[in-house]
């Protein structure tokens, strides 16, 4: 049940036909993992917190640096040197003190992944390298939960929603790793893609609309193009080829 404060706080979105009180209660019960609280993770976390997602687990092992501040809007100048999860958790708690924020200082690795994704309904990709994304993708397969993928560089972005057993997974789209590198990026790009990832998560949780499944959104901010491309399962995919179909 939603209390009076929650009914008031979320009035405008409860008025949205596809959400209503029932959808708001689903959001309240939802548990999400945001993997990384940098450029993508900041807007994802803000919007899911504002929307009233009941439990938000944020994972990152980095500290805030001056060079982060052009895009990682959960962190402010005063936060330089602070752990990113603590910095973000303090902002999110001030934005919405009725939800649970779980900050975890952890490297996402093969040994930590099962602990990080335990008791989670949806995984949101906000990492800065493909190797970690593949770990999250595999964990989503193992747990049979959605994995919302986003990535950015410069003015460009990508987005897709992966439903294990139903859609292509990350391994079907990307066929090899790429070296970890410092990616050039303007802050508005992760803002766009992060907001779209949060949109997908909210839609999944409340059961509204159509998810961006079996499709890859290609965003080009320089020419302001949103292109949808079809993706397909790779029968030899190292992650999902043996996953049972739904």
């Amino acid at each position, binding site marked *: 049940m939603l209390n009076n404060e929650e009914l008031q706080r979320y009035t405008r979105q409860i008025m949205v036909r596809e959400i209503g009180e029932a959808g708001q209660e689903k959001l309240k019960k939802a548990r999400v993992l945001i993997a*990384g609280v*940098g*450029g*993508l*993770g900041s807007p994802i976390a803000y919007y899911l917190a504002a929307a009233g997602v009941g439990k938000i687990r944020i994972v990152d092992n980095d500290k805030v640096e001056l060079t982060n501040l052009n895009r990682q809007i959960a962190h402010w100048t005063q936060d330089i040197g602070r752990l990113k999860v603590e910095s973000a958790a303090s902002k999110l708690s001030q934005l919405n003190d009725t939800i649970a924020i779980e900050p975890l200082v952890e490297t996402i690795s093969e040994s930590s992944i099962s602990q990080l994704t335990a008791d989670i309904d949806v995984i949101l*990709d*906000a*990492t*800065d*390298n*493909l190797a970690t*994304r593949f770990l999250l993708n595999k964990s989503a397969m193992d747990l049979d939960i959605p994995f919302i993928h*986003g*990535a*950015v*560089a*410069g*003015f*460009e*972005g*990508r987005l897709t929603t992966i439903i294990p057993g139903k859609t292509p997974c990350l391994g079907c*789209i*990307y*066929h*090899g*790793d*790429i070296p*970890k*590198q410092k*990616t*050039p*990026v303007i802050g508005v790009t*992760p803002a766009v893609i992060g907001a779209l990832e949060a949109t997908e998560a909210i839609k999944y949780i409340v059961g509204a609309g159509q998810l961006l499944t079996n499709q890859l959104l*290609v965003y*080009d901010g*320089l*020419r302001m193009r949103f*292109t*949808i*491309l*079809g*993706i*397909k399962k*790779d029968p030899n995919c190292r992650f999902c080829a043996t996953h049972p179909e739904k």
Partner: protein
Amino acid sequence: MSVKFIMPVFLQPVAEEKEFVEVEGNTVGECLAAIIKKYPAMKKMLMDGKGKLHNYVGVYVNGQDAYPNEMQKAVKTGDEVHILYTLAGG
């Protein structure tokens, strides 16, 4: 008439800042060879020394993923081919 290749932002600087390039060819590989002939700097950005596409380059013909054997994929006049780079930033 020709096949239209939509270039990723990363390749546009070596393609005279063009968003797309139109070339003749019966397969993706033939068309890419024509593009590389016009813009030689693009070769290393697309493929290795043996002419195999880098694993971070994706090819989509008429909006559909052409993997695997993208280079052999048949194309015809009026087709659109998107070349994509894998992005890793977050």
